[in-house]
């Protein structure tokens, strides 16, 4: 083959790999939509499951939303404070490097290991039992490093001029951070939090070991209550159910889960774009 023919062959190969990559996502989403849409009705969305494969998924939806919100309420303040420290205060010394290294390690932690830790530490050692609180804490540990990373990145992109101007006006460092640095980096921080919520709502392994069986028929009454969740419900029906009733409910729940996950991703995009426009204006 001469170089020109090689060039053509290479281009065909490259296009092919790109096409394979693009079609995966629409194929999976379309497959879920086609099979799940007929399940979406009021009974399914507001009912409770009974006899394993009948009924609706209301407790699962509410449970997933509770878990996601509580874990965000724990992880977001802690993550933001850690990020502010790392970006603005941390001296370049051994302790800072160790802190960073541990946070990076947490980001790479397999979710099943976090689940095991949650089962041992939260459920058994702290005696929080299999509950909304245990599940939310374990999920918070999972998304914490991602929120720290996104927030720190956002804080670091705030131009030094802003800080210098504020400090020159006589503001203290903390005033500068709360009035200038954090407001300017809010879009990045919010995007990080929303992406973390998307991760949390789709997570199965962690909630399986800490939050509940997935088939609970009730809405959690408090932090101590076992909590159902959509991913675990899908897992149970898909692997242990053998009837078409079970499969169509797994499809319906998958569709709801994807819709919730996509709306969080879309929210992240909208916030980013809105603030970018506002910042430019």
């Amino acid at each position, binding site marked *: 083959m001469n*170089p020109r023919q*090689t*060039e053509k062959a*290479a*281009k065909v*190969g*490259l296009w*092919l*790999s*790109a096409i394979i*990559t*693009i079609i*995966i*996502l629409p194929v999976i989403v379309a*497959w*879920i939509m086609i099979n799940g849409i007929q399940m979406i009705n009021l009974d399914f969305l507001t009912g409770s499951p009974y006899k394993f494969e009948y009924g609706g998924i209301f407790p699962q939806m509410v449970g997933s939303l509770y878990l996601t919100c509580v874990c965000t309420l724990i992880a977001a303040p*802690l993550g933001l*404070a*850690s990020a*502010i*420290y790392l970006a603005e*205060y941390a001296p370049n010394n051994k302790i800072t490097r160790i*802190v960073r290294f*541990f*946070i*990076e*390690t*947490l980001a*790479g932690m*397999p*979710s*099943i*290991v976090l*689940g*095991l*830790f949650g089962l*041992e*530490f939260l459920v058994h*050692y702290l005696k929080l039992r299999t509950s909304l609180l245990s599940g939310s804490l374990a999920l918070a*540990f999972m998304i*914490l490093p991602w929120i720290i990373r996104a927030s720190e990145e956002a804080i670091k992109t705030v131009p030094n001029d802003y800080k210098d101007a504020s400090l020159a006006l006589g503001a203290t*460092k903390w005033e500068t951070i709360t009035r200038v640095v954090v407001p300017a980096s809010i879009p990045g921080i919010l995007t990080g939090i929303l*992406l973390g919520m*998307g991760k949390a709502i*789709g*997570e*199965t*392994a962690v909630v399986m*070991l800490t939050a509940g069986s997935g088939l609970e028929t009730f809405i959690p009454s408090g932090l101590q209550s076992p909590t159902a969740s959509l*991913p675990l419900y*899908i*897992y149970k029906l*898909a*692997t242990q159910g053998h009837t078409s009733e079970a*499969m169509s409910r*797994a499809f319906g729940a998958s569709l709801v889960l*994807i819709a919730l*996950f*996509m709306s969080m*991703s879309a929210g992240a995009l909208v916030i980013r774009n809105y603030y970018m426009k506002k910042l430019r204006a």
Partner: protein
Amino acid sequence: MKKESLIRRMLFVCALFSSFIVFLIIIFLLQEGAPALTWDFLTGMTWSPHNDQFGIIPTLVGTLYVVFGAVAIAIAIGIPCAIFLAEFAPFWLRNVVKSSVEVLVGVPSIVLGFFGLLIMVPFIRNNIGGMGESILAAWIILAIMILPNIITISEDALRSVPQDYRTASLALGATKWQTVRKVLLPNAMSGIRAGIVLGLGRALGETMAVLMVVGNPEIPWIPTAILDRARMLTSTIAIEWAYMVWGSPHQHAIFALGIVLFVLVSILNLVASFVIKERTTKR
């Protein structure tokens, strides 16, 4: 001034606490798992909880078999795709591929596993053979999951090659493909390598999607063919935690699997960060 230093200290405590979690995880995993980390465990060929036999080898071999195969597939599709995005794609198409990759990275793994269980497993059973639940099915599902990571990192690495290199190569009469192969790929190699190592780490830790398609035989054996069923470190933990008796040898063995998993993933992440560091200091 006092308030300022108080705030500084409180923020430090938050950062310290965030990293302290990892410390806690290590302590508690070791406490439950270390008693089971014996020579018999690390070299044992049978895993049979009913007979109190806990050997990690079949599970470990299954894990490596699945992970390396999946990464190989992801490389075969992901790196050409990254080259396409960085060098050949028209602007609009690049945006389409990039946003689809960005969404794909977050799709809940349970949904991918469900897809694998209902579409790929029957397809393999009917058209290729075996039981359907197989290493092959796990390869494909895992490859889909790590594809976005490999594409994103490789594309970044290719883009960070200075524009001058491209212009110089093209000016010497090289075709675009020759430029990619002889100039861009060698220069971007360390970045691509880091992406592959990170992909390996992610594949190693992935649980639910693989669990649903890999078969998990009752008593794991050492898999040889790609249509064999296999067990992973992650899937064994996810299946057996439900019926382990707290305080039994079985429970300690499961936590020992967790330690092995944690150690392997940490080594891979360390290697990746070294590769990245080496690259930034070279520039």
